[in-house]
C-alpha cells in the first residue's frame, strides 16, 4: 500500500489487477441488468406472439427482410472489429486500435442509417402505432406487433447511440499517449457493451423479421 499516494488516493484498490477484475465484474453485472431490461420486452413479445400468431406473422411480413438481414451482417462485422480493436490495444498497437475502433463505429453508423431509413418507410406506410396507424385487412393486434417493433428496435438503437458515443470517446483517447501508456481496460469494457448490444439484435432479427416467413 505504499505506492505513490496521489495515485492510490483516487482509487479504493490495492493494485491494477484488482482494479481490472472489479471493472470487468461490474460491467458483467451491468450487462445482467440489461438482459432483464430487454427481457421485459422480449417477454411481452413472446406472450403476444403466442396469443396472436397470425396477426404477428402478417405484420412481420411488412418489415423489410433484406434490410434486416444486411443490418445483422453489418453488426456482426462491427463486433469483429471491436474484438480486433481490443486485441490491438493489448498489443499496444495504438494506430491499429484507432483504425479498428473507427471501423466499428462506422459500421454502427451504417446500421443506424439503415434502421432510420426503415423507420421512415414505416412512417410513409402509416405503420407507426397511434392515431394514424393504417393496416387494412389486418386484425387489431397487428398494431401490437408494430408497437413492440418500435419499442424493441428503438431501445436497441438508443443503446447503439450510447455505444457510438463511447467509441468516439475511445478514439479520441487513443490520440493521447499518456492514456495508452496507462493501459486502461476501457477498450475491453466498451467492447463488452458493444458485443452485448449486438447480441440483442441477434435475437431481434429472427423474432421481428422472420416471424411471418
Amino acid at each position, binding site marked *: 500500500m505504499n505506492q505513490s499516494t496521489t495515485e492510490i488516493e483516487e482509487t479504493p484498490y490495492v493494485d491494477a489487477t484488482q482494479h481490472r477484475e472489479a471493472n470487468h465484474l461490474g460491467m458483467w453485472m451491468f450487462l445482467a441488468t440489461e438482459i432483464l431490461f430487454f427481457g421485459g420486452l422480449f417477454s411481452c413479445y413472446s406472450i403476444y406472439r403466442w396469443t396472436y400468431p397470425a396477426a404477428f406473422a402478417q405484420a412481420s411480413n411488412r418489415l423489410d427482410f433484406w434490410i434486416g438481414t444486411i443490418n445483422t451482417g453489418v453488426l456482426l462485422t462491427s463486433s469483429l472489429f471491436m474484438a480486433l480493436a481490443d486485441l490491438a490495444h493489448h498489443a499496444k498497437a495504438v494506430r491499429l486500435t484507432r483504425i479498428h475502433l473507427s471501423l466499428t463505429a462506422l459500421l454502427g453508423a451504417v446500421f443506424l442509417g439503415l434502421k432510420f431509413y426503415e423507420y421512415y418507410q414505416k412512417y410513409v406506410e402509416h405503420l407507426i402505432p397511434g392515431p394514424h*396507424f*393504417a*393496416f387494412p385487412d389486418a386484425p387489431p393486434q397487428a398494431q401490437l406487433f408494430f408497437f413492440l417493433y418500435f419499442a424493441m428496435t428503438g431501445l436497441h438503437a438508443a443503446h447503439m447511440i450510447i455505444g457510438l458515443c463511447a467509441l468516439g470517446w475511445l478514439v479520441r483517447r487513443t490520440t493521447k499517449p499518456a492514456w495508452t501508456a496507462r493501459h486502461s481496460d476501457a477498450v475491453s469494457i466498451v467492447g463488452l457493451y458493444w458485443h452485448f448490444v449486438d447480441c440483442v439484435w441477434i435475437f431481434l432479427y429472427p423474432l421481428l423479421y422472420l416471424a411471418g416467413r
Partner: protein
Amino acid sequence: MPASAVSLVAFLGLPARASALASRVDALFITQLVVSGLMVGLLLALNLYFLYRYRRGAKVDRRPLEISEWKIETAWIVATLVTFIAFFFWGARLYVDEEKAPAVAYDIAVTGRQWMWDVRQPNGRREFNTLHVPSGRPVRLSLTSEDVIHSFYVPAFRMKQDVVPGKRVTLWFNATREGTYSLFCAEFCGTKHSAMIGEIVVQSPSDYAQWLASDATPQPDRLRGRELFAKYSCSGCHDQPSAIHAPSLVGVFGSSIPLDNGEFVRADETYLRDSILQPAKQVIAGYQPIMPSFQGVIPESDLLELIAYIETLNESTAPTAADAAHP
C-alpha cells in the same frame, strides 16, 4: 367451529356470513389467527424471559450450548415448513373448489364502469349498484368492465373478483342468508372509486321472482326489439346469410371495431346510435358505405329498444328462423 372461535368472531366484529363459502373461509382464517397468536405468544414469552434472565450483570450460567446448532435449526425449519404447507393445502383446496362453478347456475351479467355497477338480470331487467339474487341456489355472475379494472367485492360472501376490460370472467356464489349486504369496488379505478359501492339484496326465491316480475321501469323487450329490427328492414341486410354485404351484428356490442380509416372504436351505445343515425360517419373496415341514414326515421323510443336489442345479440341469442318468422 368451536365455541371459543365463535366468540372470537363476535369480538373481532367479523362481517356477516351470507354465503356457503363464508364460514369455511372464517374457519381457516381463525385457525391461522390462533396458530399465529400462539406463535407470537411463545416468542414473546421466550424473549421476555431471556431478556430478564440474561440481563447484563445477572449471575447466570452463560456457557455455550451443548446441542448442535444444526439440529435445532433443522427442527424449526421442518416445523414451520409443515405448518405452512398445511395452511397452503387448506387454502388452495377451498380456492380451487370455489373456482369450479356448478353446472347449473343462475346467470346474471354485471358490467363495471367508472363508477357504477350495471346489472342485467336474466329477463333483461336492469339495475344499477344493486344486485338482487335469490337465496339458496348457485348464482353465476358474468363480469366485464368497459373501461378500467374494477373489482367486485362482497365482504359478506368473502368473495372478490377483479373485473378486467377486454375479458369476461365469472364468479359464483350460493347466498345462504337473506338480507342486504355491502358491495364494494375493491380495485382503484379513479376519482369515485370509493363511491362505486352498492348493495346485494338476497331474497327468498319467491320474493326474488316477484321482484323480477314487478319490473316497475319499462324494460326493453327482446321480442319487441326484434320486431323493430324487422320493421325498419335492418334484418334484410344484417341477418346472416344475406345477399347484401353488411356486417353481422351478433356479438358486436362491446367489441372493438376496425374502421376503414385504420382506427378502432369500441361498439358502445353511442357507437350503435351513431351507426344507425349517421352510418357514413364511421364505416367498418372492409365494407362499403351503403347503409342509409335513419335520422328522423326512427323515433327515440324505438331507437332505444333497437339498441337494447342489438346489445343482447350474442352467439346464444342470435336470431333464429323462429325469430325471423315472428313478425
